[in-house]
């Protein structure tokens, strides 16, 4: 890594740490920004790098929420009793039960989502292009509808988790740092992954899967691995959200297909598909746009959002990074005559 890059990374890290203290009023928004970054980076792992545009990654977010909540509750109480009381009974959690349950729950959410990506993927990865998008969308919608009708996990009412034990602002900062940690981890993971032979192979799948098949790449296996890695991070993010939101219900907050489920795609397109920084830049821009429209365009915010999707997709599909790469190729180390190939980056 060059000195410039180290400075860049260090200053971003420093800013991330200071941010919640410098802007205490925006604690929740900043945490949500990290959530957007996580789902955008992980969406791009399959969408941008592997060419499989999923509209169903929200499935892992919603499932992560439920798994984390159920693990935490199940460790201390009977789940059926707890959900049928719908927050009415007296269910106390000690600090150990809360934080221990949360740690196991979030991790368990990641692992469970990883595994479910393998199961779902082994069916859906036979679908290509738009069929894959529609198929995964179908999985996410179906999951939401089924969970909403499943009384054991709270049905349409959803689940209420215990409130953060401690003062409210500390809680906000706590969740901010949880999201930030997963966000940084997913960024570093993606950065490493794209530099490996595996990363090159999934790029090959994106550009010409039939050729990749003919070269003997284990295309299905690689697709499953990639999706399951992405699902791990999304699942964990969902798990954190469950605790941050305290109460969540299946259709509006967990399996929110047309909200977060589509936002993550727009973030990536806005920032630049198939680039490392694109999803991050896109998530920041999108989040800003969303916060501004939600605050100032009373009632019309959704229309503005739909318009943003259409305009991004139709007119600006290369995104910010793609546009920059076109304008300033030298920033991306694109030179036609390079003397030696650098082995260690």
């Amino acid at each position, binding site marked *: 890594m060059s000195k410039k890059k180290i400075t860049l990374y260090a200053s971003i890290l420093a800013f991330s740490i200071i941010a919640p203290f410098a802007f205490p009023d925006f604690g929740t928004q900043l945490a949500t920004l990290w959530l957007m970054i996580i789902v955008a980076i992980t969406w791009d792992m399959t969408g941008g790098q592997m060419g499989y*545009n999923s*509209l169903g990654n929200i499935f892992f977010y919603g499932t992560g929420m439920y798994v984390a909540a159920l693990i935490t509750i199940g460790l201390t109480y009977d789940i059926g009793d707890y959900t049928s009381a719908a927050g009415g009974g007296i269910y106390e959690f000690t600090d150990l039960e809360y934080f221990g349950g949360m740690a196991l729950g979030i991790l368990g959410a990641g692992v469970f989502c990883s595994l479910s990506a393998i199961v779902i993927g082994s*069916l859906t990865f*036979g*679908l*290509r*292009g*738009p*069929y894959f*998008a*529609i*198929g995964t969308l*179908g*999985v996410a*919608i*179906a999951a939401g*509808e*089924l969970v*909403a*009708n499943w009384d054991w996990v709270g049905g349409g009412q959803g689940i209420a988790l215990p409130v953060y034990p401690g003062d409210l602002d500390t809680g906000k900062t706590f969740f901010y740092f949880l999201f930030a940690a997963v966000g940084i981890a997913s960024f570093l993971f993606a950065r490493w992954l794209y530099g490996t032979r595996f990363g090159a192979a999934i790029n090959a799948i994106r550009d010409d899967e039939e050729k990749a098949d003919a070269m003997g790449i284990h295309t299905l296996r690689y697709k499953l691995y990639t999706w399951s890695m992405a699902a791990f991070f999304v699942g964990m993010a969902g798990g954190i959200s469950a605790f941050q939101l305290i109460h969540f219900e299946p259709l509006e907050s967990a399996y929110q297909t*047309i909200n977060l489920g*589509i936002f993550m*795609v727009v973030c990536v*397109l806005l920032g630049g598909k198939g680039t490392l920084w694109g999803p991050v830049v896109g998530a920041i821009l999108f989040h800003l746009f969303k916060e501004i429209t939600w605050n100032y365009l009373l*009632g*019309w915010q*959704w*229309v503005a*959002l*739909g*318009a*943003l*999707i*259409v305009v991004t*997709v*139709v*007119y600006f*599909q290369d995104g910010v990074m793609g546009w920059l790469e076109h304008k300033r190729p030298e920033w991306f180390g694109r030179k036609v005559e390079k003397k030696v190939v650098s082995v260690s980056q």
Partner: protein
Amino acid sequence: MDQVLGNIDLLFQFPIVNLKIILDGIMIGALFALAAYGLALVWGVMNVKNLAQGDFVIAGGYVSWWLVQHGFPPLLGVPVAFVVMWGIGWVVYKLVITRVIERDLFTSLLATFGLAIMMAQIMNLMFGSDTQSVDLGYPTLHFFDGFIDLPIAKLIGVGMAMSLAGGVIIFMKSSRMGQAIRATAQDARAARVLGIDTEKVYAFTFSLNSAICGAAGAIIVMVWVIQPFYGISYSIRAFVIVTAAGLGNLPGVIAAGLGIGALEQYGSHIFGIGYQQAVAVMLLLLVLLYRLIQQRRNRQVLK
């Protein structure tokens, strides 16, 4: 679970219930088939997968509902919705669709998804989020000791759907434009070489699709209810039908439409009305799975 088994048991104890379900299913299926035919047309001719299909349907329904609110006769809604939605389809084509035709399929899918969100929200702002319907005021016929009730409005609706479909088929077979559309669907470049203005054909096809959806919506508002956010489930059904039937296979689309209508009615009878959306999506997944297995046998993928 007991309830589900009880519902299944009911089907065997009273076979007449099956007839009622199938009749209901076929009537709603005829309207699904209309929207699906429009989708197959656009998909086949310009390779655009329109996720705003259902929102065109709902918009057509609101056109008709608005007319009735302003004192016009309900049956006028169908032709007016056809014309109005033709215009809206043309505008949407010129603003958005024309720019995504040459791009990859995910682009059109996502662009129309954005469009669907916009349309649903605009209708929500204009007409509110309550469910709406138009009452034709016709009586209901009863058969089999009242086991089966058949509102005349529904019969009229199905009749209009059938004549609309028939009109479109005759148009596609015999008119110059219909021939140009079919030629473009087969090979756009060849059609251009032969002097067909494909841009015009695309614009016409998309507007026609939008108009068909609009008319279907105007019928739906007379026999069922509409709501601004119902669009997505009509889009999903249209996809299920087209995926099951394949492109350019009109009898297949009609058969699949009727079949899906009936299956959905069975689904909501057995599992309860809360599962209606889930049943529609499950059918989509089943159809995709079936096609997947079918293609795998030929070592092909579904793309």
